[in-house]
């Protein structure tokens, strides 16, 4: 009996998920045990056959053992999984923490009072996939680390260093005390104004104008094309630390990537700048003719795409060296440059040609009669104007550029200036996920110039909603100032829509000029009201009278200091010329009988009235009555 039990007990631990064989052998062992057991215990009270009860017991034990074994297995697996899961989570969290430590350091720099906190030198650029946190940054002594060239954080980040950006910077500084504004510019220059590049700078008497970039205004007062001298700005390194904040300009850097979710940008040198509010004022790049682009290196290097200071400098030099320059394009810039060069031509004998597809200068802006009259004026400035000219191909032969037109004419010249429009710089739209307008180009923004919660766009690159005139994109200087200023106001807490209508102006030589406002498109029906011109009605006289210097300033940037002298020129009515003389007047541009655009033709200092008429948006039955408001016969 004992033998049997020990044998069975030995067997029990060996029980595994059952097999019949196992059971059978167990049973046999039990039976054997039982058979030897029987003779000794006849008197046992077990009712059934003695082998049955212990068989059941073994069965239960086998099953129970299986269950227990399975349970133990399952538990150990689950537990192991849980442990592994927690380990993995811990690893991920620790990896995030490593990334955070470099960025956590940045907010501490914002503090005023010039705290000398050292930071991880971000000019080495801690990218997102950093494995090693820079522990040196936390522990190193304050004195040793130099301030990074590129500040890692700017509360106000302005992308682009042009007119709109500068106007926004000024606006922000005026409204937000102690604001820190960082301008990131591709160019090597501090912010400057563009209109003089195609106007006043060419009329300067200074032989060194190429270097100084200063010009005398009509009233004798000189000024630079730069908005402010270098002492106005703070250096980018010091921007996070200066006591009262300031405006810093980071030159020769381009923003190549914008991360809107993380509120940061990446520059072309790899460094990153985080921001709280961002303005995109990237402006545009001059378009080129396909005929020139495929014409080869010799043609391309003899072509100027005019926009920047360096283009002015190079063209100014070239105009002294070559015998013939051809301007392709009949719009504002093309015509202004043609007149400027034509004026120079009188002394140097330079041949100046201008060719364009339209029927006359400013053909897309002025009604036909006025465009023709203007073309004649441009010709008297010394320019050979070729209208209805479409360029077919350009080639370089015998040391000359040959421009072949579609109608067969050939123009031989030494240098080309292409003034065929502006392509808005919207490369950031892709990385930033911003909308680009398909009709007008540029970033699509609302009436408050906002693209996303912390992102505004102003200037040439902004396609905005004008409450009065509808969605549009404007490429003029005053618009850059107005929209830049508005964006700056909205970035510092205001919620104002585009309301103050911007204007623009153009001078074709010192004797013909106009100011305009609103939508001025020659395809619209127009009503022109004209009077005869006297000698007083020229841009020169207008500037002298009002004493405001160049008209770039009279509207939006009144000169705060310095007295100006105004000289009165005697008025002598000119002898009426043969044919129509559109000496001075007002031209209204209509859309559905409402005035949407006005040109003041040789009539100056009346822009507020024009602005008011556009703002009202009323249907006037007799525009001659409206024209009376301008007093065109007076000065």
């Amino acid at each position, binding site marked *: 009996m004992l033998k049997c039990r020990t044998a069975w007990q030995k067997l029990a631990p060996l029980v595994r998920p059952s097999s019949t064989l196992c059971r059978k052998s167990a049973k046999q062992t039990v039976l054997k045990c039982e058979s030897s057991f029987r003779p000794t215990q006849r008197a046992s009270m077990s009712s059934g056959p003695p082998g049955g009860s212990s068989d059941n017991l073994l069965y239960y034990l086998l099953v129970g053992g299986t269950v227990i074994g399975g349970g133990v297995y399952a538990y150990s697996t689950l537990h192991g999984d849980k442990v592994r899961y927690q380990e993995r989570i811990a690893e991920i969290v620790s990896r995030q923490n490593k990334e955070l430590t470099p960025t956590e350091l940045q907010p501490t720099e914002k503090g005023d009072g010039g705290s000398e906190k050292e930071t991880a030198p971000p000019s080495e650029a801690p990218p997102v996939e950093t494995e090693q946190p820079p522990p040196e940054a936390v522990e190193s002594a304050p004195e040793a680390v130099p301030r990074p060239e590129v500040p890692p954080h700017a509360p106000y980040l302005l992308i682009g260093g042009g007119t709109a950006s500068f106007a926004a910077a000024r606006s922000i500084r005026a409204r937000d005390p102690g604001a820190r504004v960082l301008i990131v510019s591709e160019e090597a220059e501090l912010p400057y104004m563009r209109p003089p590049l195609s106007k006043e700078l060419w009329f300067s008497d200074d032989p060194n104008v190429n270097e100084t970039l200063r010009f005398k205004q009509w009233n004798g007062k000189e000024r630079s094309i730069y908005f402010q001298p270098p002492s106005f700005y703070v250096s980018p390194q010091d921007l996070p630390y200066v006591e009262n904040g300031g405006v810093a300009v980071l030159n020769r850097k381009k923003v190549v990537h914008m991360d809107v979710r993380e509120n940061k940008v990446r520059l072309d040198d790899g460094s990153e700048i985080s921001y709280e509010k961002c303005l995109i004022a990237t402006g545009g790049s001059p378009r080129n003719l396909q005929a020139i682009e495929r014409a080869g290196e010799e043609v391309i290097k003899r072509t100027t795409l005019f926009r920047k200071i360096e283009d002015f400098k190079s063209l100014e030099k070239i105009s002294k060296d070559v015998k013939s320059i051809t301007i392709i394009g009949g719009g504002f810039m093309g015509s202004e440059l043609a007149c400027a060069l034509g004026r120079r031509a009188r002394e140097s004998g330079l041949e100046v040609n201008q060719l364009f597809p339209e029927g006359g200068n400013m053909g897309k802006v002025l009604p036909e009669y006025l465009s023709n009259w203007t073309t004649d004026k441009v010709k008297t400035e010394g320019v050979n104007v070729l209208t209805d000219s479409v360029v077919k191909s350009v080639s370089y032969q015998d040391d000359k550029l040959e421009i072949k037109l579609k109608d067969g004419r050939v123009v031989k010249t030494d240098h080309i200036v292409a003034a065929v429009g502006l392509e808005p710089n919207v490369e950031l739209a892709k990385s930033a996920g911003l909308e680009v307008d398909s009709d007008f180009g540029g970033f699509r923004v609302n009436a408050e110039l906002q693209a996303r919660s912390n992102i505004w766009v102003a200037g040439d690159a902004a396609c905005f909603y004008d409450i009065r005139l509808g969605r549009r994109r404007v490429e003029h200087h005053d618009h850059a100032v107005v929209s830049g200023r508005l964006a700056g106001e909205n970035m510092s807490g205001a919620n104002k829509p585009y309301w103050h209508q911007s204007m623009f102006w153009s001078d074709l030589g010192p004797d013909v000029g106009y100011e305009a406002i609103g939508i001025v498109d020659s395809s619209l029906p127009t009503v022109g009201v004209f009077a005869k011109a006297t000698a007083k009605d020229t841009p020169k006289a207008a500037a002298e009278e009002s004493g405001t210097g160049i008209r770039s300033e009279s509207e939006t940037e009144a000169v705060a200091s310095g007295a100006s002298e105004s000289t009165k020129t005697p008025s002598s009515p000119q002898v009426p010329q043969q044919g129509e003389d559109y000496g001075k007047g007002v031209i209204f541009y209509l859309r559905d009988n409402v005035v949407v655009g006005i040109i003041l033709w040789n009539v100056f200092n009346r822009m507020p009235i024009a602005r008011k008429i556009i703002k009202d948006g009323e249907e006037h039955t007799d525009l001659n009555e409206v024209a*009376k408001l301008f007093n065109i016969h007076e000065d």
Partner: protein
Amino acid sequence: MSYCKQQGKDKIIFVTKEDHETPSSAELIAEDPNDPYEDQGLILPNGEVNWNCPCLGGMASGPCGEQFKSAFSCFHYSEEEVKGSECIEQFRTMQECMQRYPELYPQEEDEEDKQSNRNAAEGEEQPSPASS
């Protein structure tokens, strides 16, 4: 004698001085001086100084902007008989700052007093641009 002609969609009217002597019958909508959208002059409708006024040039935004704002605010709200007489300290601080940037703030005698007076005068005379 005025005459009128039509060239396609464009209408051209020539007028003499006499034609335009009679007052205009065109109606303009009255201006709302408190329109929040309009560009304001130097003084806002609520009485505060508009630091963003183009008339101030770069004064409020330059390196001495804060000093200028504090001096000019003091002057603006001054109720003294000689307006701004209690603001000497702020003006002195402003002048000290400006002397550090001679390029930006050309030094003339009593320049900042003249400036603030002129600005104040400009502010009172200058209406919002559209109503002139």
